[in-house]
């Protein structure tokens, strides 16, 4: 082959190589790689936060144990008293003298709900 043939050969080989590779990346390839990198960075950051949280909890437990040892704290079991259960309205007994207030309270709460659902959420 002479020089001219060599040149043609080079061109044909290059062209054949270009076509033969048969593998092209998708058009959004760069976007996907960038997205993956950003996701990885976020994951790393949340992992770091989690580590700090765990370190904080461990330190707090350590400090608690140290303090308890320092003050020679001895835990004692609380005495359990058996209380006889009797049904009743308990602490709400006082409301029996304020029926007007109870009715007003109910109307007020219902009105708040209506205002919230009908007006505010729209």
């Amino acid at each position, binding site marked *: 082959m002479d020089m001219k043939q060599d040149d043609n050969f080079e061109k044909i080989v290059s062209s054949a*190589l270009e076509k033969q590779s048969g593998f092209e990346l998708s058009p959004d390839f*760069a976007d996907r790689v*960038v997205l993956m990198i950003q996701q990885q960075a976020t994951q790393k950051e949340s992992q770091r936060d989690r580590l700090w949280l765990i370190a904080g909890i461990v330190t707090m437990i350590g400090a608690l144990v140290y303090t308890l040892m320092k003050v020679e704290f001895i835990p004692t079991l609380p005495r359990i008293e058996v209380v006889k259960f009797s049904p009743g309205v308990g602490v709400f007994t006082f409301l029996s003298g304020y029926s007007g207030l109870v009715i007003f309270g109910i109307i007020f709460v219902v009105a708040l709900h209506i205002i919230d659902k009908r007006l505010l959420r729209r």
Partner: protein
Amino acid sequence: MVDDRALVSRVLSGDMQAFRALIKKHERLVAHMVGRLIKQEEDREELCQDVFMKVYEKLSEFSFQSQLSTWIATIAYRHAINHLRKKRIMITDLPEHENAMAAFVSDDRADDLAEQDVEVYLMKLIDELPVQYKLVLTLYHLEQKNYTEIGEITGMPEGTVKNYLFRARQLLKDKAKKYLGTEEWT
């Protein structure tokens, strides 16, 4: 076209648009490298992604002692070779004898493709070449890399690169000549 130095410095300062531009600029090179070495289509794009992730991770270590494209191609080559090793896929060793080399491309192909043009025939021949030959040819012809750069990318001595390139081209020329018979390149 944005200068590589400017692009790298923008990426290092956290500009992801610059990294997107860097990918766009070099994705063809990485696709060629991975495409030549990896046959499994399902693995190719994922490997290319890994290559650019690695590029992003190591970019601060790049000191411009070579071209950015050469450095990226080196990462792509090593990544693809590691992938082949993990999957226990052997790269065919290159035979030393010319006769053995010729065996990669059987003679009867020319008859099969008698009606088709030279380029199609060459595409078939290239496909049958050993991986290292294809890679060296691709880097030289498509990416316009010189012997030193190809050596840097593949870790081959410069002499071996020259030898592979010469043999691959010679093989293609011989086969093409046979195919063309008395015809000349047009």
